[in-house]
């Protein structure tokens, strides 16, 4: 076939003889067939290649889709999840010192005149049930797992003594160390009898496959706790701080503090050592403040540089160097910017590991993006607009300020949005300049009401001491910080699966921000292209 058939795609040899010699069917037909075969093969390959290209593109987009779907799947429940914190301090109740339950009052019993007396009601906390871990229950009871349910069923309904540390609120099931029935005549079953610091009395109940323990209500013995405080918290879910573990008694609890509990969401929580209490408040505020400094650095500097290069700069070696230089800066790896920040801002200028350092570093990092966007926007303003302005006697700066910049503003805006989205996602440079992962406070606000430090004031803890307004508009700049990507990095690096879900939630917030900003930029660019008609 190939002997007299020319190369595919060309075929210049055949048509010529057709003009004079019609009767040559055999040769012509075979070569026509061969040509057709080649064309068909070419078309087939072409189509195959077209499919491959489309497939690869959609596969890449699909990978992005899988990533986003995974973030939503793992992160969304975490985002809407809430946990409890003490209202006064904002900290979650801790299992070592707190008992959590509902605070109720009842008239004091005549049999217990030691508590209160004189018509004062008796305060009682009704602790919340605890979920029990099956495997450690079997160990605590000393029975094989197969017989566990039968043994627990025999115990349920009776008073039992449970020993062990309850887990943090909302967390895993409790792993008891010891579980024993409590005969009515046992000394530790009597009200007021001392029991182990980690022990409590109550009853077992079955809840589907799980077993739960319902601790008995405890009469509170307040020590240094104001009655007003207790009255305010009545009927609420509270955490009480135990006075001393050694004075734990059956049915009674000496307390030093009562805190009302409030639900707090992931977005409004500080980092914490347990996953369900941890949140991204510090990181989100950090990201926001760092971005403010970043924009304040990059925008004026970048727009000014762009204006100079487009409107003022003459074509000479200096502007050529600046141009090559900007192109190169855009390609410098982000971690190198971190080293610049560490060497120059942290140690040379002594700005410490602060929001200011982070913002300046990221501002310089995105500067090339802003410059390039500004130049493109300015370049798209037609010459005629400038000429008209000059013809009216305007100076160069007047022309730039009143005509060129307003017309290129949306282009500059688009570039700034892209720069912002880049800066939000940057992690490595901020790690290098020394971002702190675990921060459980917010930067100082510009205005703050602080108590006046006078000798001996406010001993009673009534909070009635004098306050003064402290004005510190720039204190936040010097505050240590963390940002969302660093928080996510930290959670991703931990071994526990639950922290990975927190990481997914942080990632979801992050990706919504960056993709949202980028989508805005794309939309603005498309609108711009349609609307402007010089």
């Amino acid at each position: 076939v190939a002997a007299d058939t020319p190369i595919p795609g060309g075929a210049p040899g055949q048509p010529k003889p057709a003009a004079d010699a019609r009767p040559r069917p055999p040769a012509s037909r075979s070569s026509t067939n061969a040509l057709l075969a080649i064309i068909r093969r070419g078309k087939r390959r072409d189509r195959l290649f077209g499919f491959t290209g489309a497939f690869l593109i959609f596969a890449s987009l699909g990978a992005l889709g899988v990533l986003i779907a995974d973030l939503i799947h793992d992160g969304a429940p975490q985002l809407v999840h809430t946990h409890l914190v003490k209202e006064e301090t904002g900290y979650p109740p801790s299992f070592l010192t707190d008992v959590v339950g509902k605070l109720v009052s009842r008239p004091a019993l005549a049999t217990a005149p030691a508590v209160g007396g004189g018509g004062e009601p008796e305060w009682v906390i009704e602790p919340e049930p605890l979920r029990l871990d099956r495997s450690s229950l079997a160990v605590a009871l000393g029975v094989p797992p197969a017989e566990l349910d039968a043994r627990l069923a025999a115990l349920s309904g009776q008073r039992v003594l449970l020993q062990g540390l309850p887990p943090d609120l909302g967390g895993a099931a409790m792993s008891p160390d010891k579980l024993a029935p409590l005969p009515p005549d046992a000394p530790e079953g009597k009200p007021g009898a001392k029991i182990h610091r980690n022990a409590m009395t109550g009853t077992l109940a079955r809840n589907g496959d799980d077993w739960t323990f319902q601790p008995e209500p405890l009469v509170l013995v307040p020590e240094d706790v104001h009655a007003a405080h207790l009255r305010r918290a009545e009927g609420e879910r509270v955490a009480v701080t135990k006075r001393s573990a050694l004075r734990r008694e059956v049915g009674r609890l000496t307390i030093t503090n009562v805190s009302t509990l409030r639900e707090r969401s992931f977005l409004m929580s500080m980092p914490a050592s347990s996953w369900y209490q941890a949140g991204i408040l510090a990181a989100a505020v950090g990201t926001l403040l760092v971005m403010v400094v970043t924009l304040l650095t990059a925008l004026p500097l970048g727009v000014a540089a762009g204006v100079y290069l487009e409107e003022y700069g003459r074509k000479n070696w200096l502007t050529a160097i600046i141009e090559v230089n900007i192109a190169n800066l855009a390609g410098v790896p982000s971690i190198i910017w971190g080293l610049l920040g560490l060497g120059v801002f942290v140690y040379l200028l002594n700005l410490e590991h602060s929001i200011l350092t982070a913002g300046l570093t990221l501002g310089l990092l995105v500067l090339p993006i802003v410059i390039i966007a500004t130049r493109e926007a300015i370049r798209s303003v037609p010459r005629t607009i400038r000429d008209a302005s000059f013809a009216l006697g305007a100076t160069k700066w007047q022309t730039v300020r009143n005509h060129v910049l307003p017309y290129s503003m949306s282009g500059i805006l688009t570039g700034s949005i892209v720069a912002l989205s880049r800066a939000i996602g940057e992690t490595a440079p901020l790690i290098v300049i020394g971002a702190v992962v675990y921060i459980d406070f917010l930067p100082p606000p510009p205005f703050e009401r602080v108590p006046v430090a006078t000798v001996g004031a406010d001993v009673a803890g009534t909070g009635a001491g004098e306050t003064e307004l402290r004005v510190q508009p720039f204190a936040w700049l010097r505050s240590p910080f963390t940002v969302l990507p660093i928080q996510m990095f930290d959670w991703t690096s931990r071994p526990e699966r639950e922290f990975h879900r927190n990481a997914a939630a942080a990632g979801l917030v992050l990706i919504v921000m960056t993709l949202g900003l980028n989508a805005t930029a794309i939309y603005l660019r498309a609108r711009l292209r349609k609307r402007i008609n010089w």
Partner: protein
Amino acid sequence: MGALGQALLRRGSGVTYVKERVIEVALALAALSSVLITLGIVGILVYEASTFFRNVSLARFLTDREWTPLFDNPQYGILALVCGTFVTTVVALLVAVPVGTVSAIWLSEYAPARLREVIKPMLELLAAVPTVVYGYFALLLVTPLLQRLIPGLPAFNMLSAGLVMGLMIIPYISSLSEDAMRAVPMHMREGSYAMGATKMQTAFRVIFPSAISGITAAYVLGISRAVGETMVVAIAAGMQPQRTIDPTEPAATITAFIVQVSKGDLPYGSIGYQSIFAAGLTLFLLTLLFNIGGYWLRKRYREVY
């Protein structure tokens, strides 16, 4: 009267002139700041690295077998880190170059114009995802998947980090290549079609060679991105410097080492502190090489038509 008017005019224009000059100088200073930044980067890297090289000879830096600057018996062989960078970059390019190129050809030659207007920005979103999210993706999604295909694959490995990094740099390659291919004049396509060539033949034998310098520039940019990428490798490839070219092993890259050291609290001026600048200088020189090459190629390709 005429003299007064002239004086006023001169005075007014004098003020305006001064104002214009001040503004121009301020703008020029802003433009010059980019040069200052470069000088700052080079200065700080060279300064800190030079204190490092006062303690460690360049010969040791290049020939030591391991990179353990924080150990009791420190070794300073940068090649252990370069190895990790090299392997992850190669894996990333093995993904990004074919996918990016084919995508670019498809977008430029096959896709209907309206579809291209939609797909191209969407593909560019791949580059907008924060790298730490890609790190999460590599460690917690791709690695478990790969472990099913390759039994015994460690939890930290360069393969999954490289693959995800490849996904990340696809848009850098596809977007720039597509721009280069679309810059090829229409008459070259028409000439090829007139000769009976298919789209694929046109793409590979006419368009691709014509746009080669732009495409190479795109590849170079991709390489430079892969070499400088930090979070994906720091999360998914492990933190242990290793002289290996087996992608299924864990190994630290130059960037991952800098992150690892920075996470701890390093005292200013210690050898560990200086070592991150030495590593950074190596990285900077590597990427600078690629960036200059890419810029030069882009410049050249712009002058073709």
